[in-house]
């Protein structure tokens, strides 16, 4: 397999994952904003933009005005925003097109269709009444691509590089969501109860599609430690950091198996995996949630960079 092709498959997956995560964050922000007064709603939207790391670019375009409709249109389709969902879907499709030979026909057609459907859905500004539908369409298209991928791809290097892209991106995304919200979670460690914070916690869970799983596991009781543990360390939840690390390990193992040797990326990831295995949520809070998350984001990036190098993504 060509290094450039591995790179294209990896980025195709990252962009798709990012588009879906952006849609989920908008959805959570939208629900939060609905329960707030106008100025608090603006705060929520600002926090969505901050989580996505786009505050600077947004304010350069629109100043500090975080009116909901403007924010979600910026995130979904604004031409001035190279990180919009539409731009990400386009980038995913361009990457898929450039690695067309590494994908099954069905995967390519699913991505091409996602692009056609979403380009159409995002051709005009999205009004409040249509937002729910548009966000559902983004999730559905991403799910369709994932489904054909799962159902038709040979479990070889192509598969591994694509999955690595998915989980590098997903781990990064979940970590950033938690990091922006940790200040909400932290002070309330000592006391449980205010309804405002309950809504905040719900929103964190919702933005990673984890509200139902969490409630089911914890019989409806919401507490910050439990949520942090769930999102960081639970190996069963498909958007937790630990889950993403496990998936990176199994796909990197697939590559080592196919190629017959390990690389620097394996070593880095082994260290990260061990750390997750031996860390309890108490220890995380003791040494600082923010510090833990930042360390993860950095380690995740280092693994990604090592993969790019080890497998010759670039000339």
């Amino acid at each position, binding site marked *: *397999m*060509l*290094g*450039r*092709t*591995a790179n294209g498959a990896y980025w195709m997956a990252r962009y798709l994952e990012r588009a879906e995560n952006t849609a989920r964050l908008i959805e959570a922000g939208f629900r939060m904003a609905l329960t707030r007064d106008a100025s608090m709603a603006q705060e929520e939207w600002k926090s969505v933009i901050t989580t996505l790391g786009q505050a600077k670019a947004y304010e350069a375009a629109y100043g500090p005005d975080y009116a909901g409709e403007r924010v979600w249109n910026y995130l979904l389709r604004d031409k001035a925003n190279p990180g919009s969902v539409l731009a990400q879907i386009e980038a995913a499709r*361009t990457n898929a*097109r*450039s690695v*067309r*030979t590494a994908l099954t*026909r069905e995967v*390519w*057609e699913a991505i*091409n*269709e996602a692009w*056609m459907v979403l380009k159409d859905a995002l051709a005009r500004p999205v009004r409040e009444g249509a937002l729910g539908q548009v966000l559902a369409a983004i999730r559905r298209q991403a799910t369709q691509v994932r489904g054909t991928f799962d159902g038709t791809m040979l479990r070889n*290097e192509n598969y591994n*590089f694509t999955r690595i892209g998915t989980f590098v991106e997903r781990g990064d995304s979940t970590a950033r969501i938690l990091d922006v919200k940790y200040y909400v979670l932290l002070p309330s460690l000592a006391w449980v109860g205010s309804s405002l914070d309950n809504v905040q916690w719900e929103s964190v869970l919702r933005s990673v599609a984890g509200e139902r799983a969490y409630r089911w596991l914890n019989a409806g009781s919401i507490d910050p430690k439990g949520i942090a543990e769930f999102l960081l360390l639970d190996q069963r939840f498909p958007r937790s950091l630990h889950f993403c690390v496990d998936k990176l390990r199994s796909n990197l193992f697939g*590559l080592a198996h196919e*190629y017959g040797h390990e690389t620097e990326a394996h070593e880095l990831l082994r260290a990260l995996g061990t750390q997750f295995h031996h860390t309890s949520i108490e220890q995380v809070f003791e040494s600082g949630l923010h510090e833990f998350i930042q360390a993860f984001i950095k380690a995740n990036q280092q693994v990604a960079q090592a993969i790019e190098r080890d*497998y*010759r993504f670039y*000339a």
Partner: protein
Amino acid sequence: MNHSPPCFDEMFAEDGSVRPAYAGYREWLHGQDAASLRRKGIEAESFFRKTGITFNVYGDNAGEERLIPFDMVPRIISAHEWRRLVKGIEQRVTALNAFLHDIYHRQEIVRAGRVPQRLIADNAAFLPQMLGMAVPGGVYTHIVGIDLVRTGPDEFMVLEDNARTPSGVSYMLENRETMMAMFPELFTKVKVRPVSDYPRRLAKSLAACAPACAGERPVVAVLTPGIYNSAYFEHAFLADQMGAELVEGSDLRVVDGRVAMRTTQGYQPIDVLYRRVDDDYLDPLSFNPASQLGVPGIMDIYRAGGITIANAPGTGIADDKAIYSFMPEIVEFYTGERPILANVPTWRCAEKDSLAYVLEHLAELVVKEVHGSGGYGMLIGPTSSKKEIADFAQKLRAKPDNYIAQPTLALSTVPIFAKSGLTPRHVDLRPFVLVSPKGIDITPGGLTRVALKQGSLVVNSSQGGGTKDSWVLED
């Protein structure tokens, strides 16, 4: 205006009866209702969009992906007609390869005075770098497209040779897929020879051209200029179907005397490169130094026998329309036989008498640039205004060498499925030919291009032409 001469319709005889090759299709068609056929037409378009069978257009709206219109009435060739075409094509392709070998070696045909020296030496498509080079297997043009037109029951003529990089074969394959998906029952009724094994044949033919240094299973790769090239879909499609890597210039470099591609496991040598990049961009060290699309040093490796480049650099000279006008002589010179397939009569404007004749008869003739392709830069006398003709005459006088002229042919028609029902439109046919030291292999069928405008003779997709599925019937 529509003074087109009466022309041969391939489906219906003058008395309105259906010709034998179309009898089975016609019978099936009678059982269909127009509304459901129209619906199928719309389905076909969405099928093409979903599959991404598009081509990129240069110029206006650059980067936009367009569909080539697909017409669902097949173009049908009888087994008997095809047999004769195959013989003619084999003869022509043999002559083309012999000609290419000769002009890059002893130039016997020039010494014999059959083709003028200047047509070769002064030709931009002639590559001095290829002189005296022994190409692997002795094959120059591995994949050839011969453009045929028809003017009567038995009159097929060659309109153009595409020895450089013929494109369009993916449409031949996808058009058939589409037809079979839309009308499966039609294919149980009419026995059509399959085309779907073309990629396998291509892979086999290319592997048979591998250089001596290749292993038992030669490594074949397709070289594309990248996703913004107008034919990118086809490059990806063929690589995918052959199970070959699709590479770009940036993936390749010379390593230990071989051209190698950067894989996730390091550089791996390539034995056969099916390149869809023009000669000029192939090697910045030998040709255009600004090229980012090629591989620095590939020509040195090629010269040393370390890689097969298909098609060989410098084959484009055979596509030249001035050379084309000599094809009857070329066929005779190398095969010792009379050409089975005729040329379209051609006036070389470089010759004084011809130029005078052409200038006098511009309103009746088609005038083409010798190096042109894609239907650009040509004059179609009968459909041009007086001013267009006068303007063109000036260009022609200024640079007569640059042009050839041909009579306006009464191209055959095949009906298309239009809003008003079946209506005849002009067509041509491009069969695809594979050449290796093991022989010549012609897939039964090809790409039928169809002019969608009434009376129009221009079938190029860049000029709004469409395509049809092309059937060769079983015996």
